């Protein structure tokens, strides 16, 4: 454990219970990562259909399908993380509305209904006009669905590192990053201008998120000793320092560089690599940020 203990007191804990360990681990990372893709592609589809309605029309069903798959990955990992998975229904029948988990569950359920409706409209009914109308409401609903996890982290009073609205900004940026990267991977037939727009969204999201993480890293310790102790795990010779920087490089720095080169050279070849790097790196970033506050003893 990293402490801010005084050398003068030479205080050493000689008997205490062990740390509870990582309570929210990789399963919750899968939850957040998949949700970022699931809502992010909806944001991107909404943007593309507003700006390039004809050229991007063919993406209506494929991106809806990606959203359905990733949102179900998110739901699957949410449920299997419960220690009592067969009591999941309690949330709907005994809801406690002060909890971000409850609100998120209802929002996510509504979102699932909306994306299935989109799939029906695009794949079975083939009604683009109705699809675009429903998509507007789905994109609006995707905002709180993206944000509720940030509210949950902020509600975790014990974890001083996670604050509102920083986490909310990170969640939205993660969604636009993962959404634009996935759409770039799926949108091979899009015109150059549309790909450039997606690349700029990817690069700007990476820049914004990187800036926030760096701000936390540099200025966070000025806020509270708990934050300082938590950030010790990812600075210097901290046990998570390497993973933190692997995440930052792959999720943000590589996409920023590749997007800049791509836009400057009017070439889209590098965007596939930027997208894959962003999506993979985001998982690592989320994992490190989720785990480090849990390494700190609460007693």
């Amino acid at each position, binding site marked *: *454990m990293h*402490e*801010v*203990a*005084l050398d003068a*007191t*030479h*205080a*050493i*804990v*000689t*008997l*205490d*219970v*062990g*740390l*509870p360990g990582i*309570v*929210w681990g990789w399963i919750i990372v899968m939850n957040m990562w998949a949700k970022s893709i699931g809502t992010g592609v909806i944001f991107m589809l909404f943007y593309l259909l507003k700006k390039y309605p004809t050229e991007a029309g063919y993406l209506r069903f494929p991106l809806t399908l990606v959203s359905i798959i990733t949102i179900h990955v998110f739901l699957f990992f949410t449920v299997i*993380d*419960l*220690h*009592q998975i067969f*009591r*999941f229904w*309690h*949330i709907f029948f*005994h*809801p*406690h509305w*002060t*909890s*971000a*988990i*409850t609100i998120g*569950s209802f929002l996510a359920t509504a979102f699932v209904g909306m994306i299935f409706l989109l799939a029906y409209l695009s794949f079975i009914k083939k009604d683009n006009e109705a699809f675009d109308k429903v998509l507007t409401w789905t994109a609006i609903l995707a905002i709180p669905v993206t944000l509720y996890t940030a509210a*949950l982290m902020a*509600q*975790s*009073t*014990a*974890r001083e590192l996670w604050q509102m609205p920083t986490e909310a900004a990170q969640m939205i940026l993660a969604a636009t990053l993962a959404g634009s990267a996935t759409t770039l991977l799926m949108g091979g037939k899009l015109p150059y201008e549309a790909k450039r727009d997606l690349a700029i969204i990817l690069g700007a999201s990476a820049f914004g998120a990187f800036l926030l993480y760096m701000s936390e890293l540099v200025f966070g310790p000025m806020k*509270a*000793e*708990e934050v300082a*102790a938590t950030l010790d795990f990812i600075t210097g010779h901290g046990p998570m320092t390497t993973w933190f920087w692997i995440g930052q490089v792959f999720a943000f720095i590589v996409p920023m560089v590749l997007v800049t080169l791509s836009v400057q050279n009017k070439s889209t070849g590098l965007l596939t690599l930027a997208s894959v790097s962003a999506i993979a790196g985001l998982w690592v970033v989320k994992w490190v940020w989720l785990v480090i506050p*849990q390494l*700190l*003893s*609460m*007693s």
Partner: protein
Amino acid sequence: MHLGFLVDLHLCMGCKGCEIACKVENEVPLSTWRLRVKYVDVGVFPETKRTFTPLRCNHCANAPCERICPVSALHYIENGIVNIDKERCIGCAGCVMACPYGAIYIDPETQTADKCTYCAHRIASSLMPACVVACPVEANIFGDLDDPASNISRYIMENQGNVQVRKPEKGTDPKHYYVGGGNITLNPLASKRVEGYDLFGKLTTKMPVGGHH
């Protein structure tokens, strides 16, 4: 009525009687604790001393665990106790993440959240919590904070200026007080942790005591 707890750290001698009484009363599984006593050694030999700090749920008036629980498994009862309904708990561990005092754990047998309830079942029968009964030096003082004549209220009154709570900056309004506490005893960041301190944390409920069958 608002029940509260106070531990006079001047009196506590670290016998762990409260810890054991709690374990027995509430059938707390191995490797988990509703109440535990933390030892912190201070100073350099020969100028050393050992401090003992019993740690349990603080039954906060503004409890983050109650707020984050999606199914109201953690809930207030009329006497101010933050109680838990293990039949309703879904085991999301939100409360474990929210509690700034590390007082909540996932019970390995029931796979639900669990914590100190101030022995709510005993209080309902007009009995004192098991840890209070077991304490040989009456370091645990329990009672109604709304009653100025109660032991705990008088104790707080008599020790004004020397009554502390853990992590007041969290705004949780804990109803668990300490007399004679300090930064080293109450702030987890004020002491170092060296290998071996968590000896008992390495036991698991599946490990047969005394060797393999």
